[in-house]
C-alpha cells in the first residue's frame, strides 16, 4: 500500500516539476526584450503583412491567452512551427532525437563499463601507488571542458592522423534506407567514435569514483567478512558480494548521468557537427528561432526529468530491501 502511495506522490511531484519547467520556458521565451519575430520580419513587409505573420504565430493575443494556447498545444504534442525551417518543430525534433540518444547511450555505456571495473579495481588496490596516481588523474578528467577534449581529439585523430572523419554522422552523399541501416554502418560508427570517446572520457569519472568509494564501504561490511570466513573464493567475495552491493547506487546514477550527458551534448555536438538536439538548440537560439529552441529545450528537460524518475524506480527495483518490503 505504501508503495502505491509513494509512487503516486512521486508522479505528482513529476507533474509539478514538468508544469513548472514548461511555464518557466514560456515566460523565458515570451518576456524577452524585443519582438521575437524581429529576425524574421523583412523590412519590406507592410504593417499588415507583419500583423498577419504575428497572428499566424499567435503573438497578437494577450499573454495569458498565449499561455493557455501554449499549454493546450503542448498537451496535444503540438510544438509549433519553426521560424527558420518553416516546418513543424515536432518533426524536426523526432529526426534529431535518435542521433542524440545514440551518442549519449553509447558513450555512457562505455563510460560505465570502464568506470565500474576501474573503480572496483582501485578499491581493491587501495593505498597502492596506482590508486594514489589514478585518483587525481580521474579528477582531472572531470575538470576538462568537454568541448576542449573534443577539439584535441579532433585535431589529433582527424586532422593530424586522418583516422576518423571530422564531423557529422555520415560521409557526404551516403544514403541509408533506415535507422538500423545507418546506425550499424561502418560509416556511421567511424563518425561516432570521436564524439562518443570525448563524452565517455569525461563521464567515466562519476561511476569510477562512486564505485570505488562504495566498494571501500561495502568491503568493511560484516557480510563480506562472513563470506571470507565461509572460505568462499576471493572472486566470489569481491565480485558476488562486495561489487554486487556497491553496484546498486552506481546503476541508479546511470539514469541521472543520462540527464547530465544530454546537457554536455550541447557543446560536444557543436564541436563535431553532430546533428542532435543539443546542436539544434544552440543553432536555434543563435538564429532566434524561438519555437524550435523551445521545443529542443523542452525535449531535453523532459528526458532529464524522466531520468530522475527512472533513477528512483531503478533503485526500488534493484534493491530487494525496497522491492520486497
Amino acid at each position: 500500500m505504501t508503495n502505491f502511495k509513494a509512487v503516486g506522490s512521486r508522479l505528482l511531484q513529476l507533474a509539478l516539476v514538468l508544469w513548472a519547467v514548461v511555464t518557466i520556458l514560456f515566460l523565458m521565451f515570451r518576456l524577452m526584450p524585443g519582438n521575437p519575430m524581429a529576425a524574421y520580419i523583412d523590412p519590406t513587409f507592410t504593417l499588415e503583412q507583419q500583423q498577419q505573420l504575428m497572428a499566424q504565430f499567435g503573438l497578437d493575443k494577450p499573454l495569458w491567452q498565449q499561455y493557455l494556447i501554449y499549454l493546450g498545444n503542448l498537451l496535444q504534442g503540438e510544438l509549433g512551427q519553426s521560424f527558420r525551417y518553416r516546418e513543424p518543430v515536432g518533426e524536426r525534433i523526432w529526426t534529431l532525437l535518435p542521433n542524440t540518444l545514440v551518442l549519449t547511450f553509447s558513450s555512457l555505456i562505455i563510460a560505465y563499463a570502464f568506470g565500474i571495473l576501474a573503480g572496483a579495481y582501485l578499491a581493491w588496490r587501495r593505498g597502492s601507488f596506482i590508486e594514489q596516481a589514478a585518483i587525481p588523474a580521474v579528477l582531472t578528467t572531470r575538470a576538462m571542458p568537454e568541448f576542449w577534449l573534443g577539439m584535441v581529439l579532433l585535431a589529433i585523430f582527424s586532422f593530424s592522423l586522418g583516422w576518423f572523419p571530422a564531423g557529422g554522422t555520415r560521409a557526404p552523399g551516403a544514403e541509408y534506407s533506415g535507422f538500423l541501416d545507418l546506425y550499424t554502418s561502418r560509416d556511421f560508427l567511424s563518425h561516432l567514435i570521436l564524439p562518443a570517446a570525448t563524452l565517455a572520457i569525461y563521464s567515466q569519472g562519476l561511476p569510477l569514483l562512486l564505485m570505488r568509494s562504495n566498494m571501500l564501504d561495502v568491503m568493511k561490511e560484516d557480510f563480506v567478512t562472513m563470506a571470507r570466513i565461509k572460505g568462499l573464493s576471493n572472486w566470489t567475495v569481491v565480485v558476488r558480494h562486495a561489487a554486487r552491493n556497491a553496484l546498486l547506487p552506481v546503476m541508479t546514477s546511470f539514469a541521472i548521468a543520462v540527464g547530465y550527458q544530454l546537457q554536455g551534448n550541447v557543446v560536444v555536438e557543436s564541436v563535431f557537427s553532430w546533428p542532435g538536439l543539443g546542436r539544434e538548440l544552440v543553432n536555434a537560439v543563435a538564429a532566434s528561432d524561438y519555437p524550435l529552441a523551445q521545443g529542443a529545450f523542452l525535449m531535453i528537460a523532459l528526458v532529464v526529468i524522466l531520468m530522475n524518475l527512472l533513477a528512483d524506480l531503478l533503485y526500488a527495483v534493484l534493491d530487494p530491501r525496497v522491492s520486497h518490503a
Partner: protein
Amino acid sequence: MPEIAAPAIIKPRRPNILARMFRTLRLPVNDPFAVAGLLIYLVFIATAVFADQITTHDPTEILYTPSYDLAADLRPGQDGFIMGTTSLGRDIFSQLVYGSRSALLIGVTAAFMVALIGSIIGLVAGYFGRLVDAVLMRLADIAFGIPFLPFVIVLAAFLQPSIWNVVIAMALVLWRDTARVIRSQVLTLRTRGYVEAARVAGSSDFKIIVRHIAPNILPLSFLYGSIAIGWAILTEASISFLGFGDPDSISWGYMLQDAFASQALAKQAYYWFVPPGICIILVVSAGFFITRGYENILFPKLNR
C-alpha cells in the same frame, strides 16, 4: 544532560575575527593535493592581479610584424610573440593571461552566489521546516528538472551577453545542490542539545541561527562554493565557446571559440587551443583537490 548546561557556562571566546574565520573554515592544509590546489589558486590570482604587468601586448589589439604584415597565425617565438598569434593577429600569451581575470571573476562571483543562495535556502528550509520547507524543497525539485547548460544558454542569449548574466543564470539553477545538503545538515543540527537548550532558554530564531547553526554549516557552504567555482568556469567556457559569451571580455572559452572558428584544428595550431584548455583544467582541478581535502576533514570516514 551536560550538553544543556555547557553553553551557558562556557563563555564564547572572541579572538580576532580573521583567526576565527580561518578556524571556522578549517582550510585543509595537511592534504598535499589540497595544498597544491591552493598554490595553483594563488598563482592564478597573482596572474589575474598583475595581468597588466605580465602581458606583452593588449590582448584585443590587432598586431603587425616589423615588416608591417598582419601578425596572423604566427608560431610561438616568431617575431617575439611568446605563444604565437591568432588568425586575426592577436597575441595568444596576453589573451591567456587576461583570461585568468574573467575566469577568476566569474568563478568566484558565481560560487559566492551559489553558496550564498543555497545556504540561505537550505538553512531556512531546514530550520523552519513544515510549509516553508515543503515549498522550498519543491522549488529545488523544479531546479533539478531544468537542464542546466541549455538554460544558461537561453538566458545568456536573450539577456544581453555578459559575464553577469551567465553568473545569474548559474545562480538560478545551481543553488539546488547546496540547499539540499545544507538543509539535511541543519535538520541534524537542530536536534543537538545546545540548540534545544538555546530555544528553551528563549533565544530568538535569528540568534539561534546566527550563533549556533550558521557557524556549523559554514565549512559545508565553503565546500559547495569551491565545487561551484569549477562548475562556473567550465560553464562560462562552454557558453563562450558556443558564442553566447561576453564579447567585450577575453576569456579562455572565448579563445577556444576563436581558435575553433578560425580553423585552428585544421591548421594544427596546438599552441593556440591547447593552453587555454590546460589553464581551465588547472584551475578547475585545483578546486576539486581543495574540495577533496575538505571532504577528508568534514567526513573523516572517507579517509581510509
